[in-house]
């Protein structure tokens, strides 16, 4: 858990701009059947930090999608690998703010390879990364020492700015 201090610069910038108040850390196996329990916990903690019910369940959805991606793409559906999740409150923000860091020991991929597809081409799959970006204000993938990936998710306040940024309509 000292890993938090070892991240490269981009992540450190976030950590230092807003001192986290540690809430909960979880270590889980990469088993899809554990997702229900983890998202219930995430939703309950987010709600306790001040997010409304709908926003809390959306934050839980973003975490669920990120964990599903680690299991599916990182660990290639192997059920026995470790995933670490830490949930913190960021205190010096204008509104209530939550930071969730998800770490794995899976293969390290280039963060640019993890991206959303064109939604106009309606087909099954390829929605997870889009959903994560829609819900969270900060979404940052980076390599983790000694192996794997670290994903940092931050959400501030209940209201998300209108998500028209990539929507010409």
């Amino acid at each position: 858990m000292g890993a938090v201090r070892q991240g490269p610069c981009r992540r450190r910038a976030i950590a230092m701009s807003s001192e986290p108040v540690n809430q909960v850390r979880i270590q889980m196996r990469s088993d899809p059947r554990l997702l229900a329990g983890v998202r219930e916990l995430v939703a309950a903690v987010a709600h306790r930090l001040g997010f409304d019910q709908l926003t809390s369940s959306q934050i839980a959805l973003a975490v669920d999608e990120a964990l599903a991606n680690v299991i599916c793409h990182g660990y290639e559906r192997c059920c026995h690998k470790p995933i670490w999740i830490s949930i913190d409150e960021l205190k010096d923000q204008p509104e209530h703010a939550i930071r969730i860091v998800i770490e794995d020991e899976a293969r390290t991929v280039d963060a640019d390879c993890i991206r959303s597809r064109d939604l106009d081409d309606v087909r099954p799959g390829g929605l997870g990364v889009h959903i994560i970006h829609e819900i969270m204000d900060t979404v940052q993938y980076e390599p983790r020492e000694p192996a794997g990936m670290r994903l940092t998710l931050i959400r501030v306040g209940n209201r998300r700015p209108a998500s028209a940024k990539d929507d010409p309509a």
Partner: protein
Amino acid sequence: MSDLQIDIERRDGVAIVTPRGDVDMATSPRLRTELKKLIAAGTTRIVVDLSHVPYMDSSGVATLVEAMKSLRQVAGSLALCNMNPRVRAIFEIARLDQYFTICESIEEALPGT
């Protein structure tokens, strides 16, 4: 909770599929199997009643997109009804609320199906 029960009922040639439980990465394969079986057996009109689905993630949405695509190929139809606000939100985020026929109730879904 992580198990998913799926009830299937037929009414006027329409299959009403009622999953009960969270539809996520662990459980969506069950829903996928049931929908594929129905479609393989020649069902062309399906209503999925989501009143007992407290939670759905993108794997559930993908399952429904896949079924919808298969049904369109045979000029069939798929309607979704009784979504709670949490489930509806994911269809909006995925910009699929226009792609699917989303109804308030089974009754509303049935005639137009």
